[in-house]
C-alpha cells in the first residue's frame, strides 16, 4: 500500500505528452526529408548508406535507455522506492525495441556492403549480448513470486548489464572488426551528413521521452489495478 502512494497516480496523456510526440513526429519528417532529399549519396557504399541515419540514432537511444535503466536501478536499490524501478523497467522496454531495430537494420545494411547478413565480429556479438541481457532483465521478474524480490534481482542486472554498453561502443576500437568505426566522434563526417544525423537523433530522443512517459503511466495503472483488486477482495 505504501508503495502505491510512492509511485503516484497514472495520468492520461496531456499537453506535454502530445507536445513531445508532435515535436518528435515533425523532426522525423524533417530527418526523412534531409536523408532522402538533401544528403548526397555516399561514394563507397552508395544509396544503402542512408540506413545509417536511422540505424545510428536507434543505437544511441538504446544506450540512453539502458543508462536510464542503470540510474533507475541504482536509485531503486538505494531508496527502495518502486517508482524508480517503474522508470527503469519502462526504459528497458523502449531500449529493447530500439536495439532490436538496430539488430534488424544492421544486417540489411551489411548484406549489400559486406556480402553477408551477419558476421560474429566483436561489435555485432557484443550487441547481441547487450540485447539478451535486457531481455533477461525483463524476464527475471517473472521467475520470482515476490514482486519486490524480482525488482531487486532486475535492478542488479540493470546495473551489471550496463557494463555491456561501453563494451559495444568501444568494440570497434578495442578489436579488429568489420563494423565501421565511429566517424562522428572523429569529426570525419561531412556537415551535410552530420546535420541529417543530428536531426534524426533529436527526433528519436523525443520519441524515447514520449514512449517512456506513456510506459511509466501504464505501469502506474497496473499498480492502481493491483491496489483496487486488494480493496475489492477485502
Amino acid at each position: 500500500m505504501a508503495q502505491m502512494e510512492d509511485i503516484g497516480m497514472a495520468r492520461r496523456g496531456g499537453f506535454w505528452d502530445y507536445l513531445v510526440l508532435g515535436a518528435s513526429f515533425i523532426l522525423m519528417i524533417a530527418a526523412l526529408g534531409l536523408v532522402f532529399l538533401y544528403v548526397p549519396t555516399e561514394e563507397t557504399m552508395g544509396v544503402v548508406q542512408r540506413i545509417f541515419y536511422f540505424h545510428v540514432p536507434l543505437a544511441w537511444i538504446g544506450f540512453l535507455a539502458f543508462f536510464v535503466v542503470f540510474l533507475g536501478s541504482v536509485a531503486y536499490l538505494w531508496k527502495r522506492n518502486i517508482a524508480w524501478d517503474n522508470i527503469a523497467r519502462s526504459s528497458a522496454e523502449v531500449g529493447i525495441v530500439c536495439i532490436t531495430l538496430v539488430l534488424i537494420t544492421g544486417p540489411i545494411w551489411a548484406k549489400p556492403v559486406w556480402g553477408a547478413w551477419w558476421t560474429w565480429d566483436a561489435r555485432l556479438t557484443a550487441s547481441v549480448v547487450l540485447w539478451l541481457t535486457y531481455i533477461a532483465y525483463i524476464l527475471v521478474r517473472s521467475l520470482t513470486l515476490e514482486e519486490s524480490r524480482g525488482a531487486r534481482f532486475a535492478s542488479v542486472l540493470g546495473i551489471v548489464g550496463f557494463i555491456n554498453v561501453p563494451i559495444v561502443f568501444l568494440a570497434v576500437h578495442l578489436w579488429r572488426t568489420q563494423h565501421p568505426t565511429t566517424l562522428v566522434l572523429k569529426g570525419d563526417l561531412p556537415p551535410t551528413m552530420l546535420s541529417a544525423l543530428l536531426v534524426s537523433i533529436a527526433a528519436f530522443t523525443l520519441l524515447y521521452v514520449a514512449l517512456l512517459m506513456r510506459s511509466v503511466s501504464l505501469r502506474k495503472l497496473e499498480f492502481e489495478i493491483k491496489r483496487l483488486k486488494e480493496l475489492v477482495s477485502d
Partner: protein
Amino acid sequence: MDDLGYVFAAYSIIWAIMFLFVLSLYWKERRLRRDVDRLRALLDEDKRD
C-alpha cells in the same frame, strides 16, 4: 534486391515496429483504464451495500 530495396526494407521495418509498439501501448492503456473503471464501480457498489 537492389540497394534501394534494402533501404526501403530497413525504413519500413523501423516504422512498422515503432508503430506496433506505440499501438500496443495505446491498447494496453485502454484495457487497463477499463479494468480500473470496472473495479472502481465494484467498490462503489460494495460501499452502497
